[in-house]
């Protein structure tokens, strides 16, 4: 049943306020339990043996010496994980990524795992496992991997999306194309054309909490898994499938999560921990080291993008064409598609084409990273548009306003937009005090726009009214940054009760129906929808109970401000009944009072942002510092504005790190050279200024309160905003991210000579 969305634009009593988060005290006292904070009685400690080679055939694995070591309770290799995936390529890749089968495909690929009585013993056991490798040629660069001379990583990958189907395997698993109109005609109409190839390096989500889990599988086929994840239901389903367990027999409890940003949407070591536990018949704890997180979890793609945009002298963009090459790591993926779909989404274009080329390289399997694939595409598009503005002699904001998408625009990826916020964020940027502030020596200002789809997905929610009239809300989406507070606000708003009278918990997988991950900025949107619907169902029950208490027809009762009230001509004249009074009487009126809802949350509202960045560049060293930063983004409706601001600020900070410093550095040997926070440097407190935010609220018509997702869009504009600021500060246009000091210095020196 579609949810009545008429509530949009009504006055809210609680939504939009800033109450304290319910998990706050636990998190400031050290009491909150994260992945590695849980221990099971009698648990073993597991460690994973990983490949030192980027690409090699596994000739033999000899575990016999390790098995004889006192204290070793189980050792597994791929032989202990039979392929049960029945032709499902995605699942097979997942299995193979968790544990290498015939070949290792990247530096850090798991080849065996050990469970022992303690870490010291497990570490000794790893050293006793002998693996004979036949080293194969490797390729780690996204462009190199497409060359005919490149080693082919999978001999059963034939490019999808080209006709006729290739007869030779390659490292290009798929091609696709999005857009409309006639780009050749569009470029003929252009007075000015900008054309460049842009490159971005691979970055990691950089969550501070390494992956950790405790698995406990018994010989009767039942199992439990405690794990830090963005989606415990999805982990359950995937682990059960790979291990041949019934889904219902595996109960997964999500720990508090110490950051994910997309990186905890994929299973990595969890099937290994479960398999070890099953083999040893003991609980097994498996925690990744930081080095393992960098080497063997899922960073984002590095990319290479050809971008061509043409415009008339009046600033009208006549055509835009991008060819986007993204790698998915060592397995087939579709990240370039997301890049091609999002690249031009901010603009109303007559002729537009985004072509995606998916590439396989000898690097870890790429995972989602906050608005996955969009930041790199936006870097190319927004850099080119800035250059176009300069060539035309038009203000960069004005040129974007002139071409901005609006309600009714056919997006470059297909759908026609409803009410959207790109124009409003641009107007707000144009009028923002930041735009008018003076700049100092070696300083420059840049701006850029960004888009993200936002997702909905499968969701369900249970609301239980307890005997004292306070309420528990059980949800199935992980709280990655304050969503318990926003869900609590929405439940309180609907029920007309105080926020303090609502407790929101994340249910385990045996206590609630399947929920998709907390990804795609869906947590507050989709679980919010389910919560609102469940609250409305609970209200129906509450009204029915009041009717019973008054002995009047159910439809003669209305719910207002947390009270049942008689309404209508035959209702009679009763004083309102509070939720507490109805709850107290529940035992005599039909039993416990609850509301449930399950839905596929369609109608996620697309999201747009405009960022403004001031940068100062030291021409002697090439080091650059962000001096001022402003994020303007459409939230639809900010349920808890503090956590919306937090999402804006956090995304901007990650984007700034990506723009200026962060990159995976692989040696010629195909090994990752900077697998640690010392050499993979994310922004620290002294690197950043305060990040100003402006929340715009253009309601999403598909949500009763107008909510759009807010978590991801904020990482889309920074790469380009910083690059445009750099260009304005020192007159150099860098087309390779990150703009680290050596690259900047090189560009400054090249200009001097």
């Amino acid at each position, binding site marked *: 049943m579609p949810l009545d969305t008429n509530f949009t634009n009504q006055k809210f009593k609680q939504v939009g306020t800033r109450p304290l988060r319910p998990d706050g005290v636990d998190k400031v*006292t050290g009491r909150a339990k994260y992945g590695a904070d849980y221990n099971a009685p009698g648990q073993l400690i597991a460690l994973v043996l990983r490949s030192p080679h980027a690409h090699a055939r596994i000739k033999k694995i000899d575990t016999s010496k390790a098995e004889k070591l006192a204290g070793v309770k189980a050792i597994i290799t791929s032989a202990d994980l039979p392929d049960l995936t029945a032709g499902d390529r995605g699942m097979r890749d997942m299995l193979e990524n968790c544990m290498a089968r015939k070949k290792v495909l990247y530096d850090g690929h798991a080849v065996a795992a050990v469970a022992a009585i303690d870490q010291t013993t497990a570490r000794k056991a790893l050293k006793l496992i002998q693996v004979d490798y036949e080293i194969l040629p490797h390729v780690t660069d996204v462009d190199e991997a497409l060359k005919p001379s490149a080693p082919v990583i999978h001999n059963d990958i034939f490019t999808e999306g080209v006709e006729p189907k290739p007869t030779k395997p390659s490292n290009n698993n798929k091609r696709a194309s999005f857009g409309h109109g006639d780009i050749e005609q569009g470029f003929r109409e252009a007075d000015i054309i900008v054309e460049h190839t842009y490159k971005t390096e691979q970055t990691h*989500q950089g969550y*501070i909490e390494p992956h950790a889990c405790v698995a406990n599988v018994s010989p009767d086929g039942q199992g439990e898994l405690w794990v830090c994840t963005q989606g415990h239901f999805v982990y359950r389903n995937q682990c059960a499938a790979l291990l041949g367990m019934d889904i219902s027999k595996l109960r997964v409890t999500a720990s508090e999560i110490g950051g994910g940003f997309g990186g905890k949407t994929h299973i990595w070591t969890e099937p290994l921990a479960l398999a070890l536990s099953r083999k040893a018949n003991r609980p097994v704890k498996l925690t990744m080291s930081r080095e393992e997180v960098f080497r063997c979890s899922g960073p984002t793609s590095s990319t290479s993008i050809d971008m061509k945009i043409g415009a008339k002298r009046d600033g009208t963009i006549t055509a835009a064409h991008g060819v986007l090459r993204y790698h998915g790591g060592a397995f087939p993926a579709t990240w370039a598609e997301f890049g091609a779909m999002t690249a031009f989404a901010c603009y109303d274009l007559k002729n537009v084409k985004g072509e995606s080329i998916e590439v396989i390289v000898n690097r870890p399997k790429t995972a989602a990273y906050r608005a996955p694939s969009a930041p790199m595409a936006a870097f190319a598009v927004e850099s080119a548009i800035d250059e176009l503005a300069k060539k035309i002699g038009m203000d960069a904001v004005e040129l974007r306003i002139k071409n901005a998408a609006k309600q009714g625009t056919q997006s470059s990826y297909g759908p026609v937009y409803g009410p959207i916020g790109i124009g409003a964020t641009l107007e707000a940027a144009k009028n923002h005090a930041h735009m008018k502030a003076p700049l100092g020596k070696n300083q420059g200002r840049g701006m850029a726009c960004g888009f993200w789809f936002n997702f909905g997905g499968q969701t369900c929610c249970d609301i239980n009214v307890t005997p004292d009239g306070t309420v528990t809300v059980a949800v199935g989406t992980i709280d990655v940054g304050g969503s318990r507070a926003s869900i609590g606000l929405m439940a309180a708003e609907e029920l007309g009760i105080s926020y303090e009278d609502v407790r929101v918990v994340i249910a385990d997988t045996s206590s609630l129906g399947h929920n998709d991950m907390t990804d795609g900025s869906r947590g507050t949107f989709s679980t919010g929808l389910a919560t609102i619907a469940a609250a409305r169902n609970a209200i129906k029950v509450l009204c029915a109970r009041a009717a019973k208490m008054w002995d009047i027809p159910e439809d003669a009762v209305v719910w207002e401000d947390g009270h049942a009230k008689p309404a209508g001509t035959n209702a009679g004249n009763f004083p309102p009944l509070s939720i507490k009074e109805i709850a107290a009487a529940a035992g005599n009126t039909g039993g416990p009072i609850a509301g449930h809802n399950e839905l596929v949350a369609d109608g996620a509202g697309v999201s747009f942002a405009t960022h403004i960045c001031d940068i100062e560049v030291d021409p002697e060293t090439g080091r650059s510092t962000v001096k001022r930063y402003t994020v303007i983004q459409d939230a639809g409706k900010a349920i808890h504005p503090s956590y919306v*601001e937090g999402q804006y600020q*956090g995304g901007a900070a990650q984007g700034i790190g990506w723009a200026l410093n962060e990159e995976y550095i692989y040696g010629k040997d195909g090994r990752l050279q900077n697998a640690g926070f010392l050499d993979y440097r994310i922004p*620290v*407190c002294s*690197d950043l200024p305060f990040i100003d935010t402006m929340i715009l609220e253009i309601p999403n018509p598909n949500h009763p309160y107008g909510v759009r997702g807010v978590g991801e869009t904020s990482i889309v504009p920074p790469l380009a905003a910083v690059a445009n600021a750099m260009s304005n500060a020192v007159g150099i246009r860098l087309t390779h991210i990150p703009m680290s000091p050596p690259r900047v210095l090189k560009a400054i020196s090249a200009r001097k000579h």
Partner: protein
Amino acid sequence: MSGVHVSTTINGDAVEFVCNADEPLLDVLRNRLGMTGAKEGCGTGDCGACSVTINGRLVCSCLVLGAEIQGAKVGTIEGMAKGDQLHPLQKNFISHAALQCGICTPGFLIAAKALLDKNPDPSEEEIRFGLAGNLCRCTGYDKIVRAVQATAKEMRGA
């Protein structure tokens, strides 16, 4: 396996434990003493999530051996609140929404307290450099710095 016997004081309480000679204090706290408030983000002293104080000095507990704290006074996040009274930093971190996922929060609180103990009136720059040894990936540090500023002001006024 021969262990090292250590007598020490943690959050004002006398504590004794036996650990391996090469065992980091962080592992002792988490695995032997059940104090999981200090987190391991890296194990190499780069992230500050395991911050504690030893005799008032801020350290990464992953870089200190358990055997080294014989006779010392150790302060961890578990000892920051006094009974049911949260420290002003803890209150302000919640009220300023200075945490999202919260994994770095114990380390930030310990580091911020160490900073304010030494410098009750820090400038924004002093706060930013004082907390530069602690990584946060969620917040962009904005609300963390504001929470520390608000606390410094409040504690000076008190």
